[in-house]
């Protein structure tokens, strides 16, 4: 990147695990030294944003941020209380209102998508794979429930029942905003 091509790779911060499974815990890839023997400075810091790995709410807005939003937005202790992590196994989806269900779909979809992107460059991260499966399952179930109650979000992808073709056309479009 800096012209001499001798061992110094891109300054872009790196994640923790390479696809080949080599650890990158301190950000310093083994055997990749600069000419004078120092590790490249760019590798010393892991960026704080690999949500699943570093569990920080900074920047990426993914897992923890979504969960804390979920906690703020949802009434607690009234039977519909639900934070994302506790939703999965019990099968509980917060569906008190259309807005609530759509917010839940937004959150679990974002988690699933961001994990998919992370897995593009860290395909052997077992923990991330597990989270991905978990959130994808939550997403599929919530999409199906949404279609049953309000009409399809992905036409032809789920049950295709309940006047889906009519509701695809007549139900509000995302850019319209409003309360649903």
């Amino acid at each position, binding site marked *: 990147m800096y012209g001499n091509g001798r061992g110094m790779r891109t300054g*872009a911060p790196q994640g923790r695990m390479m696809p080949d499974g080599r650890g990158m815990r301190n950000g310093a890839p083994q055997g990749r030294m600069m000419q004078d023997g120092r590790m490249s400075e760019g590798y010393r810091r892991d960026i704080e944003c690999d949500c699943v790995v570093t569990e920080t709410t900074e920047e990426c807005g*993914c897992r923890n941020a979504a969960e804390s939003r979920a906690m703020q937005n949802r009434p607690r202790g009234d039977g519909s209380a639900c934070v994302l992590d506790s939703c999965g196994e019990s099968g509980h989806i917060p569906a008190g209102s259309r807005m609530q269900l759509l917010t839940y779909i937004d959150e679990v979809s974002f988690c699933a998508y961001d994990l998919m992107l992370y897995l593009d*460059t860290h395909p052997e991260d077992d923990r991330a794979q597990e989270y991905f499966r978990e959130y994808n399952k939550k997403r599929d179930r919530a999409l199906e429930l949404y279609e049953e109650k309000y009409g399809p979000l992905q036409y032809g992808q789920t049950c295709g029942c309940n006047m889906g073709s009519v509701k695809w056309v007549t139900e509000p479009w995302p850019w319209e905003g409003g309360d649903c």
Partner: protein
Amino acid sequence: MWYYEKRLEYPVKIKTPNAKLAQVILSQYGGPDGEMGASMRYLSQRYTSPNGTVSAVLTDVGTEELAHLEIVATIIHQLTRGLSPEEIEKAGFAPYYADHTIGVWPQAAGGAPFSAAEFQSTGDPVTDLNEDLAAEMKARTTYDNILRLCKDPDVTDAIRFLRAREVVHYQRFGEALRSVQDQLDARNFYAFNPGYDAPTACFAPDKQ
């Protein structure tokens, strides 16, 4: 192949129209570092990708940029919705209005129409990925600039989400570039074009 999902990646609900702000945010729709250019850049660059990691990152980020394009368009739509001609004139939005009423059209804040000249597809994955890293940072800077001009929390909320995603994409592109360099000779990464002179084998971890 793509399917449409009838929701925004991040919700946008703007209560107060503001054509002046819409004019500025238009840049992230069709401006030099906007979402349209971002999506077209990544989706066009995929075809000379030297490994599966790069193909996956370009496809998935390029797809997410389409979702961001929709978020930005929604912001513009909701900021201009229901404005009277007088309000439009007062906000300095009349030149845009003359051509497009309140339709959404890809242009920069200064009025220059969207152009494919804003991005490259060089056919060299090392070069392209370096452009992609820069593009994410340029988009982040544009969002930073928009945030300094924007006081409406309904708008800043969505802009902050978009800004954060640029940082995540930058991270993934750094890892993608590294996956290319791992296939090359560290003594000279630039000896040849891995997307043309010596296309490398598809890197699929489960097939090794």
